[in-house]
């Protein structure tokens, strides 16, 4: 971790998340930030991070693991603080992207009103949610992103309610771009960030982020777990342009949902039976396929 930053450079030369950060081994956020940094291709962003592991990993003052100007915002305020930043950046004709880097707690739960309002105003913000489906920073409590059948410290008998469909909520705001990202699909991941960076207005990226401590999984298996989640259909990879034009990027194969859940100890016996999850997957894919068929993304959407 460097105490003093590279002087007078307006380009991002270092990794966005530098060595010396405090992320756990196998944290999906570490890889996500590396790839975000890679896709930025030298562009120096402003970064807003609300309360979440993402700001703890920066380390204690005066050091910071982040190689970009970063503000630690209050929990619910990432999109509002980013609105102020992007407003002033635009008034001063700056082209540095303004990025929110947030967890699912700050996105699905406490920050959802702020997020919704910034999306409705179509603020020029790239909003990135690393979704580990749990309040990881506080030791593993349920969020509305936690799937049904998962043990957390606040659902000791397993969560009853299903995961909130955040992509549908964001699509309902008709924002220019929303996409899901997989750490097991690197080219797709980078392409989507580049697509988002090349668009203006509100852009929403949702990444499934393995959390070995919360998921009770092996740190080395995180990327495999995400691959299983995508291939069994649990975490669909797709894009939505303007909230209305859909493109599915990867369709489920023969992978069983059991391959995903059996490698984690967060799922209850009921969930491990997988029937509940399979019903959810079928319903989700029925809806997604219908949407893509009815409202397909066009070639010119691709940048």
């Amino acid at each position, binding site marked *: 971790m460097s105490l003093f930053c590279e002087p007078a450079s307006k380009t991002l030369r270092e990794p966005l998340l530098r060595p010396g950060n405090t992320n756990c081994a196998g944290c999906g956020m570490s890889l996500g930030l590396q790839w975000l940094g890679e896709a930025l291709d030298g562009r120096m962003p402003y970064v807003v991070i609300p309360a979440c592991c993402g700001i703890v990993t920066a380390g204690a003052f005066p050091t*910071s693991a982040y190689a970009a100007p970063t503000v630690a915002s209050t929990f619910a305020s990432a999109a509002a603080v980013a609105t*102020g930043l992007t407003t002033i950046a635009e008034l001063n004709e700056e082209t540095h992207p303004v990025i929110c880097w947030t967890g699912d707690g700050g996105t699905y739960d406490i920050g959802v009103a702020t997020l919704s309002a910034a999306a409705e105003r179509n603020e020029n913000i790239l909003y990135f949610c690393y979704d580990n489906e749990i309040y990881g920073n506080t030791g593993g409590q349920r969020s509305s992103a936690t799937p049904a059948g998962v043990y957390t410290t606040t659902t000791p008998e397993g969560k009853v309610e299903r995961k909130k469909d955040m992509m549908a909520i964001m699509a309902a705001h008709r924002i220019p771009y929303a996409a899901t990202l997989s750490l097991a699909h690197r080219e797709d991941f980078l392409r989507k960030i580049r697509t988002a960076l090349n668009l203006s207005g509100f852009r929403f990226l949702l990444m499934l982020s393995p959390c070995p401590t919360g998921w009770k999984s092996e740190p080395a298996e995180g990327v495999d777990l995400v691959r299983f989640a995508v291939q069994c259909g649990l975490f669909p990879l797709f894009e939505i342009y303007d909230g209305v034009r859909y493109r599915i990027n990867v369709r489920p194969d023969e992978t069983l949902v059991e391959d995903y859940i059996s490698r984690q100890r967060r799922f209850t016996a009921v969930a491990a039976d997988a029937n509940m999850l399979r019903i959810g997957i079928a319903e989700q894919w029925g809806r997604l396929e219908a949407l893509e068929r009815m409202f397909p993304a066009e070639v010119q959407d691709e940048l």
Partner: protein
Amino acid sequence: MARTLVSGNYAAGRTLALAGEANRFARGCCGGAYPITPQTEIIEYLRSHIFRKGRIVPVESEHSAMGVCIGASLAGARAFTASSSNGLAYMTENVFAAGYYRLPIVMIAVNRTLGPPWNIWVDQGDSLALRDAAWLQFYTESHQDLVDTILLAFRVAEDRDILLPAMVAMDGFVTSHTQMVCDLPEQDQVDLFLPLCDVPHQLRVDHPATVGGLTWPKETEYQRREIQKAMERVPGVLASAIDKFEEDFGRRPAGACTAYPDTRAETVLIACNTMCRTARRVVDERRARGENVGMIQCKLFRPFPRRELSALLRAAKRVGVLDRNHSPGSGGIFGTEVAATLQGRSDVLVQDYVVGLGGGDVTPAVIDGIFDELAGRSHSDEPIWTEVAA
């Protein structure tokens, strides 16, 4: 300068817009706008103003209104907003954040009773609840005082020696919705009076740093001590700003606290906001009858001007504090501060009066009665409720 008949809300909105425009040669201005009675006309004014380099964002809550101000200020811009009552309560987390980030944001607080039960009329409990949020707090007694204090607030808040946000309070309806003639400054005068806003710790792409991250106890204590030191510098910086104001505008606004008619009175009432104007009239009437009474306008509440107030009370024997607020389990909030200021003065009797809560009308007769009560006291007592039996 134009002598104009305006409402308090118009005066505040117009002055905020002038201050925002004055930063057009730097990073511009920005604020969040969210309505709540009785401040709504301020954010309506701001939304209808066409800024040459600025934008007022219509947000979904007061919490986000302050969030937008924080982001804009961290981007180096001049930032401001307005709120009242439960709006201020809802905003609270980000009000503290703005103070601890050391961002010179200016907010108009149009005082309104906190609910429930719902009551839209004035008391100062809403802004006083934020007294520990590392913000400067000014309480204004008239439209002119409001206009002048908003400009002073920007200048003091943005001073390199201060760098703290500032709240400028006025009475809901009594000031916000009544009209008075006042001098509204011209843009070129404000341009001259307010230096371009420079937030030294703004986010910089050529010097990446993380603002607001983790600190250990030692660094946190250091940061809080720095805030206290900055607060202690406010009276001096405010006095210089008033001198500069007089140069630029040709009139001298009231300072941290002001004695009327002089500092020789033995029986003194301390008040804020529009109660001061009523108290002054009662003082005139009683002095005409030969009584040695006076009053003090306490305009600055944070930092609390202990030294200045002490000096004004050197001749005082009886001090009554008018508190249009209530801290349950304690009493009036100004009263506690005044008592702390006068600790060690065994020659002074200090009595707190809780008055005009929920917009109860503080008439000359009410204040006259308080003078009588204070004159007949042999010792100080628990805060006295003037509207209802204690």
